[in-house]
């Protein structure tokens, strides 16, 4: 609008004069500025599904299309409970029918190419589509080649970091492991999807072991010197399972032997930089990560492999009218969590709807709520509120559940209950 010419301005005034007559006849002015246009959303996960829903909710006249490669979506949140055997994969699988009923067009196909300049996508099925605004919420890809053999072990050492068949593969390996066996969990380096995920996973496998294979152990072979919700997790592990060498859960810091540099499926070992080796009966190797290759190939990533965005609208810093949400984007200090992606999606939807109605977007506001289950009846959490200041997202306030004081069991029991409420609410918001 900055390049608007005087002629255009005069024409607008003319238009204003003409429509003011309508107002007199009782037609509200708001009707004239409804958001209209076409938006394509790529990726039907926490960021994409929420964005599509809110685009339609706040801009009912928008033509919203969601493109997702799978007909049904399996959530990463709560997939650790499936690995622990307390829930089935069906219980965390969602259809897009609710979204269709709300007037969102859902296309089940894989986007194979993005022409960011033209806001155009090509689909595996052969179709190409373009839009006035393109929202990409593609999630992560693995950064293969950073740990020796990391591209060869998806079956022998399932990552289970994209929920679905991988989740069940890991579940089955743990189920068929003999009592007294050792599970190694190898978390990735920062940044990665769901920072507390590997530690919740250790917890829920320990919960399964306590009930079914009490002599078995879990060793977390970390490359990092510290991890998400560390104080709360370690206090809870000590209390519930036992923590340390020879106990049910052992955490090996990145400071102890350096980062993991090699995995060997033939000997089922994990090797650290200074030569320490760990052997497991089951190994959950979670590779290092970057933004999905789709956005990498589209030229939307920075030198670190993630997408720089204007953090108020989530519009890409390198492609106008193209928005990147969720794990693929740089939204620091927000973590790469499902909830964070939904909060970003709401701000992005507000920005697009406002733009398409020719208005300025409301001032952004973001929140993150992330529960982790130490056991099915023991929850901990991190929560934070963020604001947009000085051109970026800044944390206003937030924190982690206080480490476990024994007398406050009810607190953690309630957090576990609320974790389930969170899951129900947020998936309803996405798919309802």
């Amino acid at each position, binding site marked *: 609008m900055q390049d*608007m010419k005087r002629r*255009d301005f005069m024409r*607008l*005034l003319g238009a*204003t004069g003409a*429509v*003011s007559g309508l*107002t007199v006849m009782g037609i509200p*002015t*708001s009707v*004239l*500025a*409804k*958001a*209209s*246009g076409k938006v394509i959303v790529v990726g039907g996960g926490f960021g994409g599904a929420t964005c599509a829903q*809110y685009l339609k*909710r*706040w801009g009912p006249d928008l033509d919203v299309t969601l493109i997702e490669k799978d007909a049904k979506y399996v959530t990463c949140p709560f997939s650790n409970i499936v690995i622990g055997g307390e829930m089935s994969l069906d219980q965390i699988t969602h259809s897009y029918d609710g979204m269709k009923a709300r007037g969102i067009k859902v296309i089940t196909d894989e986007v194979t190419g993005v022409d960011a300049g033209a806001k155009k996508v090509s689909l595996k099925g052969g179709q190409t589509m373009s839009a*006035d605004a393109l929202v990409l919420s593609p999630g992560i890809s693995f950064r293969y080649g950073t740990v020796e053999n990391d591209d060869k072990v998806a079956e022998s050492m399932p990552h289970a970091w994209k929920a679905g068949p991988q989740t069940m593969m890991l579940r089955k390996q743990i189920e068929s492991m003999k009592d007294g066996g050792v599970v190694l969990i190898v978390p990735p380096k920062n940044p990665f999807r769901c920072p507390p995920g590997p530690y919740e996973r250790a917890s829920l496998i320990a919960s399964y072991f306590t009930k079914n294979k009490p002599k078995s152990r879990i060793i977390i072979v970390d490359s990092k010197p510290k991890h998400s919700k560390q104080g709360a997790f370690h206090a809870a592990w000590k209390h519930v399972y036992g923590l340390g060498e020879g106990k049910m859960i052992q955490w090996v810091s990145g400071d102890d032997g350096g980062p993991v540099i090699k995995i060997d499926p033939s000997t089922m070992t994990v090797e650290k930089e200074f030569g320490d080796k760990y052997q497991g009966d089951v190994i959950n190797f979670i590779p290092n990560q970057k933004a999905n290759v789709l956005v990498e190939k589209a030229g939307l990533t920075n030198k670190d492999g993630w997408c720089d965005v204007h953090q108020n609208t989530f519009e890409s810093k390198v492609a106008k*009218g193209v928005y990147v949400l969720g794990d693929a984007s740089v939204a620091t200090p927000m973590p790469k969590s499902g*909830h964070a992606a*939904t*909060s970003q999606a*709401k*701000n992005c*939807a*507000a920005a697009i*709807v*406002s*733009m*398409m*109605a*020719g*208005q300025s977007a*409301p*001032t*952004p*506001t973001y*929140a993150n*709520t992330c529960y982790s289950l130490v056991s099915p009846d023991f929850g901990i*959490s991190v*929560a*934070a*509120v*963020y604001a947009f200041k000085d051109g970026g997202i800044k944390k*206003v*306030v*937030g*924190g982690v559940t206080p480490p476990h004081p024994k007398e406050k069991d009810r607190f953690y029991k*309630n*957090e576990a209950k*609320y974790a*389930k*409420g*969170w899951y*129900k*609410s947020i998936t*309803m*918001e996405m798919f309802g």
Partner: protein
Amino acid sequence: MTLKRVAHTGLAAGLLGILLFGGVASAADVSRSALLAAQCEACHGMGGKGAAPMPAISGMEIADMVDIMKAFASKEEVSTMMYRHAQGYTDEELKMMAEYLKGK
């Protein structure tokens, strides 16, 4: 319709609002109140109508909502998580959320 034309139409309506009502017309169905309340809806259900055991927060009196949020923030009212959220908003923001959710 091109984006530029959409923007122009929007500007026309904006001007119209200013001319007729002396203020900026809020035409899209999104406001700061809706965006703030959308952060609540993630856990408390669409329209704040609840998702058990997450309590419903729709239809509350504005003063009551602001009061309980401030009590969470000061920890006068015990909560597992809500104090960490409530501390993140100004009184004005709490009021905007409350106004939006009251109408749901």
